[in-house]
């Protein structure tokens, strides 16, 4: 039930809707953006970060919650498994069954490698499945990969590793073509040209979509292809340690059955970490749009064997998480809602910012409006601002919402909110891990034969990511990691397997004075209420 305060505020929003819809709000200057970020973005709250006291990134800043996991204890002892008796012995081991893991598995398999996919839930249980808005690629006549590069580089605060970003934008059109060739559906005009929209921070309309199920459409097709190609997938099987060989090269992983806790060894010539993001760590107590399994496992696995991280201190808070109703608190309201014309409106019905600033700037502006502006609209468990969805149909005609964002219509209608008629309350929600494991252009980390793809990578986007560049990165870097890992596997002769790093890491913990008992990787969040 909407509160009286909400209903009163909605009246003001309705009264100003027509004028607001016609308005073209100004974009912020570079200085104004810097200021709002420093003052309001969660990444700038110093007390929420700490310096790592051990490992490759020692002395560098990470969120408190991540430090606890990176400096955590291993779940196993080296003596718990028999390394001389691997259950699986493959060319390429892919850890993670989301978008990048599936794309990697397909390409590695096609390159002739014997591939195993190990995933801690089911294949397809991943953030890719939940991506709604779209995937970027510069394929329109007024656009080019170079313009895409500039948008992404600037949106990421000029911090991206340029060769990685170049790969992302130049391989984007081919990635779309590859997906379409697998049978992924895209919104198209009758002549076949792609229906594209803006995302926050894009200077050209290059957001390709499959309604607002873009990620789901990609993920279910990739999963189907993995199955059609007969690639072995072992689900409910989490990697808990990377195994090295006696030359310090990655050579497999210890897998744990999520239900029985049984351990087994997977030996591989090359390993790809495709474990995704970290929303379920709930940095700074934020709710998240992420999948149940998004717990930064890959970062922990890689860090423990000596791979360097890049930008682990930067997280993306999606500006429009659901603030009401409670049942879907923190759930993603796709940026496509704003791409289609809905604006952000305050308590008094005033447009307080351009709806398509980059995500970090938009999130910070919403926090600012609630804290120091007109104030947020209160809910029983927080606050938010309005995202005026009825504006979409005012601008684009009746039926637009049902045809272009059916998932949003359904999500709210389950709680008796018709977004065609009523605006929705939103507040920033934890969405994406901008940083991750540092890789070279072959997707290899600092550890030989350990490859990385997808959200677990750091550096592709810099310190903020544009909408639609993540679905793109899972496909581009997933495919590339698969090809590179398969090619590399041809020349690898695996030495003697070892888990000696577990003891040395434990020793380093002691020397650094780390005394916590936190086990990592985390694997799953703990939501069960303590009942005793």
């Amino acid at each position: 039930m909407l509160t009286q305060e909400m209903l009163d505020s909605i009246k003001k929003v309705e009264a100003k809707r027509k004028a607001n819809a016609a308005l073209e709000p100004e974009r912020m200057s570079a200085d104004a953006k810097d200021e709002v970020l420093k003052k309001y973005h969660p990444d700038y709250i110093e007390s929420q970060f700490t310096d790592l006291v051990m490992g490759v990134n020692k002395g560098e800043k990470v969120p408190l919650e991540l430090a606890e996991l990176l400096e955590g204890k291993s779940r196993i002892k080296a003596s718990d498994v028999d390394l001389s008796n691997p259950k699986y012995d493959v060319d390429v081991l892919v850890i993670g069954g989301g978008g990048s893991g599936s794309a990697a598995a397909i390409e590695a398999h096609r390159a002739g490698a014997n591939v195993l996919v190990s995933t801690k839930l089911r294949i397809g249980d991943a953030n890719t499945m939940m991506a709604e808005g779209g995937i970027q690629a510069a394929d329109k006549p007024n656009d080019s990969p170079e313009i895409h590069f500039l948008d992404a580089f600037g949106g990421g605060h000029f911090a991206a590793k340029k060769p990685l970003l170049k790969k992302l934008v130049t391989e984007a059109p081919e990635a779309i073509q590859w997906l379409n060739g697998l049978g992924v559906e895209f919104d198209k005009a009758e002549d076949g040209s792609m229906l594209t929209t803006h995302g926050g921070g894009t200077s050209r309309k290059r957001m390709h979509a499959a309604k607002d199920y873009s990620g789901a459409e990609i993920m279910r097709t990739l999963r189907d292809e993995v199955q059609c190609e007969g690639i072995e997938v072992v689900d409910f099987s989490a990697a808990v340690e990377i195994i090295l060989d006696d030359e310090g090269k990655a050579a497999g992983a210890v897998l744990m059955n999520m239900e029985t806790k049984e351990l087994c060894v997977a030996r591989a010539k090359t390993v790809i970490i495709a474990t995704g993001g970290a929303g379920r760590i709930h940095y700074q107590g934020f709710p998240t749009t992420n999948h149940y399994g998004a717990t930064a496992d890959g970062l922990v696995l890689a860090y423990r064997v000596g791979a360097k991280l890049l930008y682990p201190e930067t997280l993306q808070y999606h500006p429009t998480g659901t603030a009401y109703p409670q049942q879907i608190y923190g759930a993603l309201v796709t940026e496509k809602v704003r791409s289609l014309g809905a604006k952000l409106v305050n308590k008094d019905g005033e447009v307080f910012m351009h709806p398509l600033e980059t995500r970090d700037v938009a999130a910070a502006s919403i926090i600012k409006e609630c804290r120091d502006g007109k104030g947020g609209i209160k809910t029983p468990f927080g606050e938010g601002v309005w995202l005026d969805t009825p504006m979409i149909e005012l601008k684009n005609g009746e039926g637009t919402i049902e045809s272009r964002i059916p998932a949003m219509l359904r999500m709210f209608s389950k709680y008796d909110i018709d977004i065609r008629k009523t605006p929705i309350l939103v507040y920033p929600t934890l969405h994406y891990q901008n940083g991750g494991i540092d890789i070279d252009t072959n997707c290899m980390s600092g550890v030989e034969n350990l490859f990385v793809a997808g959200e677990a990578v750091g550096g592709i986007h810099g310190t903020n990511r544009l909408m639609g560049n993540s679905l793109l990165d899972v496909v581009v870097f997933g495919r590339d990691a698969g090809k590179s890992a398969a090619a590399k596997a041809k020349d690898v002769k695996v030495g003697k397997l070892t888990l000696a790093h577990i003891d040395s890491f434990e020793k380093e913990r002691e020397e650094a004075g780390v005394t916590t008992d936190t086990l990592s990787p985390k694997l799953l969040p703990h939501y069960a209420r303590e009942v005793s």
Partner: protein
Amino acid sequence: MSKNGMVHIYLMGKQYEVPEELTIMTAMEYAGYELVRGVGCRNGFCGACATIYRIKGDQELKTCLACQTKVEEDMYIATLPFFPLVKKVYDIEEVTPSQQIMMQLYPEIYSCVGCNACTKACPQGINVMQYIAYAQRGEFEKCAEESFDCVMCGICSSRCPAGISHPQVALLARRINGKYIAPESAELKERVQEIQNGTFEDLISSLMNKPVDEVKKLYNQRDIEK
């Protein structure tokens, strides 16, 4: 009726008292379950949390996604974390967009008895029986559109007397539609060719080699398409 904002539910037959605003999924966690199965995106997109329930005193078995459904008083809940759907293997490059392919891979769709239990059970409100009818006739474009919001939870198949794996049939139809029936984008094809020819190589290299202050200026002054 709820008392003090609490309702009584039965998880696999055992009674628990939980706050009424919870979803079935969060109610299970409130009851103390540490979920591994039957939980996924928690957002209505992945189909991991198919659930069957019945309200005490009511005959009808209802179906839903646990993450998208609020608890009710006297709700008997059974989760369906896995359903053995039939998944046929095919080479998408060899498939032809004709009715033949359905007869070959999923002939059981022609045994549909028209009971409509699939449609009634669908938590996404999809007209499942209708898209199966489209698939039977080889009308893949219509089948793709009708089934588009499918999250592949498998509830429809669990209710089907003919043993049809509806979500898999729909997925095949969508892949055929996406690859063979929907018109190809000429712009996309051309752009991929241009990139392969190295058309943009110099532009990007020159941008990458500029000092960062110059790039910042370019970024801040760039022209934004209306």
